[in-house]
């Protein structure tokens, strides 16, 4: 039963990513954009893993793991940089 559902999941994930992108563009303040970024990295990870399973290649799962690690590091650096920019006094 799930083999009928599995090809549908990437489309659902793409719809979620599209809606979150909408929030990323509209987002009035900086906080909204960071929030949308956090959701996007999670959904992209899900998309990679589903593709890895659909095409039966384990390589995509390794890609998903590395993506998650670097996405998290990038997010860390991003938030740290913004913290300095916003109030600028404490490091």
């Amino acid at each position, binding site marked *: 039963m799930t083999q009928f559902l599995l090809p549908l999941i990437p489309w659902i994930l793409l719809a979620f990513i599209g809606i979150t992108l909408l929030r990323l563009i509209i987002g009035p*303040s900086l906080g909204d954009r960071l929030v949308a970024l*956090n959701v996007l990295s999670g959904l992209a990870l899900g998309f990679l893993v589903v593709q890895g399973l659909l095409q039966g290649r384990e390589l995509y799962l390794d890609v998903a793991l590395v993506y998650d690690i670097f996405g998290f590091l990038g*997010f860390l650096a991003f938030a740290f940089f913004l913290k300095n920019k916003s109030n600028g006094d404490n490091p």
Partner: protein
Amino acid sequence: MNPILFWAREVLALLFFLFFLVFGLSGLLGLFRFPDPWSRLQASSVTSTTSVFSLLTALLLIAPSWAMASRILIIMAFFMISSPTGSHIIARFLWFSGLPHWMPEEKDKG
């Protein structure tokens, strides 16, 4: 593989796909309905962490080979660490940048 095990995995995977849909939609709805970044942060962390985690468990259940299942398990372990921490980082950033939080107007309280 005996059919009982097969159908148990199928039904459980469907259940977790359902969780993925429910949490994803509710989080997305919250992302757009809530008034300020603070509450949107709560809605978005629901979407990104819980729904993707239940999606990964569903995929873990229907993984064709042990090689894939072990990789998905590692991804789930690391995702459980990185996603809530990311949400915490945003909360700290919002806190230190002193973003004004939403307050109901005076007339609403009356």
